[in-house]
């Protein structure tokens, strides 16, 4: 049992210790809480009561004054001490500035201090303070002349001045008297007044300017309405107005029973609406009228950006190459070529197939071997200019030159071309103009034109075929005939001279410009020009080949047999192969007649020999040969 601790004693000690600890803790906690609470709300100092504060000090007549404060709110445990007001006057006569207590706590009401005239000095600063339980709660300093707020005016009344003729409006005069407290007669106070009035059922008071006199007229009041009037006063030099007087009710006598019910309100809204609608109608009339002048005045047309020779659609489509070519044409060559032909300004070309670009123009191939690029798409369209039957050789020439420029061989090729053409066509003899091309020029244009129209004119001629180029230029129909839609014509024969005879019925027109260089050949080969088929087999062509120089031509492209309307220029360019022997048709429509045939040999500068491929096997296509199958061949093929 030694181990047994005397629990009683220990218990006591333990209990004491715990008690002490708890007391300390609670004290600490309480102090902390109270501190925090005090910091949060300092009002807690005064037993959770609101601090009294001065609300206002007022002197109604510059002879006495009173000060008011808020009542203290008592929530606390202790009963509040009395609130006291002390004041002091900073008077030089009174050297001691001791605080004196308020002389009158009653006269001005609760929580107020009233200073009568004996305690009031006007121009001497006062300081007052509120105390509660010995502690200063609030303090304020002022001079009495600064706290003047006069009493409200008294004895408001009104008199009728006059009524309007219509009996709708009336004028009245409102009179009042100065407050009794203010000593106006001795001049101690000078007041000014402010009047406010309104209709009975309105909420907003109308204010008038401050006035010094005690009466004021009110004009143009409506007879059928009741009005309320009130006045307040203030000392002339101070800022604070006194309280408002009692409200004066003004009820005007209704003399005339026939008063208008409503005022006439000028129908501004109607006028505005009608005015706007009228203006709108007029505007629309102008806009949609056919009178262009007025329309142009109001809506001047925006000039479409137009460069001669350039189709705006080109710009839209973004085909800069063509635009560039056209621009180059304009810039470089326009003055040179267009000066004479003022009636022709634009070429109308169709652009249909951008794929044609890659295939190049026939004339390109005819002219030089370098022209592989395609400048086929000349988007030259201008609705303003008339379509010219004779397409400007200049355009094409420049076009080609542009191509050449792009290729870099402009200067070189052109003279060649020109020379060759001149030689071939003997145009310099006959048709010497600014341009080497004359009425027979359409031929020149044809290839490019053909391309432009995307007739899928396959370039069958190589670039070297200048003569063929020439022939093509010449052969194709008259410009006049080309003025119509059909500026392609089937070439029926080629003269040895290099000119192309066109079918139907257009033969020999191109021959006008021909040079009769090889009349014998012409005669020889001009036997059967009247044929529809303008294709010549190589063999046949060879018959007619005179001593005319040959032109090396490389055959390039496949024949395209798509279009049947297109007449070959290339083939027809063969100068020699004019023999109609080749004009044998394929009988009937069993076999489509190809329009183009690849050029195999260019034996002369003036002619092209078409590729005469070997006849295929019977079951192969028949179209591989020169475009048609002779009867013998056909018999071979077909059983």
């Amino acid at each position, binding site marked *: 049992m030694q181990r047994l601790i005397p629990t009683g004693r220990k218990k006591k000690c333990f209990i004491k210790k715990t008690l002490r600890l708890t007391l300390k803790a609670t004290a600490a906690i309480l102090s902390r809480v109270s501190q925090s609470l005090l910091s949060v709300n300092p009002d807690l100092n005064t037993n959770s009561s609101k601090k009294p504060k001065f609300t206002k000090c007022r002197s109604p007549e510059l002879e006495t004054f009173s000060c008011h404060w808020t009542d203290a709110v008592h929530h606390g445990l202790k009963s509040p001490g009395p609130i006291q007001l002390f004041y002091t006057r900073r008077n030089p006569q009174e050297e001691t500035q001791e605080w004196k207590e308020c002389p009158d706590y009653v006269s001005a009401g609760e929580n107020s201090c009233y200073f009568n005239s004996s305690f*009031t000095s006007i121009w001497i600063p006062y300081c007052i303070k509120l105390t509660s339980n010995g502690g200063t709660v609030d303090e304020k300093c002022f001079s009495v002349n600064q706290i003047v707020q006069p009493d409200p005016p008294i004895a408001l009344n009104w008199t009728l001045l006059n009524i309007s003729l219509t009996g709708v409006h009336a004028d009245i005069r409102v009179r009042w008297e100065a407050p009794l407290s203010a000593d106006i007669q001795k001049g101690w106070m*000078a007041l000014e007044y402010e009047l406010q009035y309104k209709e009975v059922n309105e909420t907003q008071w109308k204010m008038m300017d401050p006035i010094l006199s005690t009466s004021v007229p009110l004009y143009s009041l409506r007879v059928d309405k009741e009005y309320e009037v009130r006045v307040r006063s203030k000392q002339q030099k101070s800022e604070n107005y006194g309280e408002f007087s009692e409200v004066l009710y003004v009820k005007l006598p209704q003399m005339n029973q026939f008063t208008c019910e409503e005022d006439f309100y000028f129908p501004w809204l109607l006028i505005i609406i009608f005015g706007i609608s009228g203006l709108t109608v007029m505007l629309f009339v102008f806009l949609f009228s056919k009178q262009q002048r007025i329309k142009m005045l109001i809506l001047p047309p925006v000039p479409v950006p137009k460069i001669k020779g350039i189709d705006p659609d080109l710009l839209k489509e973004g085909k800069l190459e063509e635009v560039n070519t056209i621009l180059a044409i304009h810039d470089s060559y326009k003055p040179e070529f267009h000066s004479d032909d003022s009636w022709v300004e634009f070429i109308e070309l169709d652009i249909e197939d951008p794929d044609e670009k890659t295939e190049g123009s026939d004339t390109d191939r005819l002219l030089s071997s370098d022209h592989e690029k395609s400048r086929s798409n000349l988007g030259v369209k201008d609705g303003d200019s008339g379509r010219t039957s004779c397409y400007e050789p200049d355009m094409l020439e420049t076009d080609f030159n542009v191509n050449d420029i792009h290729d870099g061989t402009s200067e070189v090729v052109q003279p060649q071309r020109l020379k060759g053409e001149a030689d071939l066509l003997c145009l310099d003899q006959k048709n010497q103009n600014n341009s080497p091309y004359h009425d027979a020029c359409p031929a020149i244009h044809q290839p490019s034109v053909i391309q432009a129209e995307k007739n899928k004119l396959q370039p069958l001629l190589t670039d070297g075929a200048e003569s063929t180029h020439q022939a093509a230029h010449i052969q194709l129909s008259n410009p006049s005939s080309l003025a119509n839609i059909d500026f392609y014509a089937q070439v029926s024969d080629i003269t040895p001279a290099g000119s192309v005879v066109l079918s139907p019925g257009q033969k020999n027109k191109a021959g006008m410009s021909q040079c009769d260089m090889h009349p014998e050949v012409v005669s020889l080969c001009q036997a059967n020009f009247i044929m529809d088929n303008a294709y010549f087999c190589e063999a046949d062509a060879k018959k007619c080949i005179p001593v005319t120089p040959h032109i090396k031509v490389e055959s390039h492209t496949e024949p395209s047999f798509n279009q049947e309307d297109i007449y070959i220029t290339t083939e027809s360019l063969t100068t020699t192969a004019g023999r109609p022997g080749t004009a044998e048709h394929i009988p009937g429509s069993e076999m489509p007649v190809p329009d183009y045939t690849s050029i195999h040999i260019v034996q002369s500068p003036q002619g092209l020999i078409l590729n005469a491929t070997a006849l295929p096997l019977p079951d192969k296509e028949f179209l591989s040969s020169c475009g048609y199958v002779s009867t013998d061949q056909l018999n071979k093929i077909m059983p």
Partner: protein
Amino acid sequence: MNIKRSPWKGSLLLLLVSNLLLCQSVTPLPICPGGAVRCQVTLRDLFDRAVVLSHYIHNLSSEMFSEFDKRYTQGRGFISKAINSCHTSSLATPEDKEQAQQISQKDFVSLIVSILRSWNEPLYHLVTEVRSMQEAPEAILSKAIEIEEQTKRLLEGMELILSQVHPETKENEIYSVWSGLPSLQMADEESRLFAYYNLLHCLRRDSHKIDNYLKLLKCRIIHDNNC
């Protein structure tokens, strides 16, 4: 004193307008043209003009004080420090209506004249000091200049009134001496500000006093206590 340049246009405009308005009414009276001994200008006109002038001066000084207080000394509690230390306190001025009614007319007028005389020098120095500031506040300076000029005019008018009310008055130039110039020029900004504050506060108070006294006198002399 670092008095910043303030937007003075509003107050200057007000000053101009009020000046114009006053100029309409305060036409320079032909003060005894030809040097006549007794002017034909009636007392009534003199008093009317004097009241207008005093009213105008009081307005100006109130504005000047409030501007100064708002800009420089707001919240510093100078009002409590403004112990009744105006230099004109030495003059026995009535402090309420009763006292004012007990004083005689001529004493009253003499008193007013003394007060006005006492302010000649302080106003002159006020203008000089404000003008010589580096960044002189235009509003305060213009008002001070105007107050100085109008006070001179009022003094002339009051002296005329005095000569009419009390012709036998000897020219005793009783006035309070102002010695506040050194305090206006103190280096310490706080003390300097307080000196200006005090001066302007006293000016406002004295202009109010003069205005009140003149209205009292006018009603008493002209209207026989029945304004």
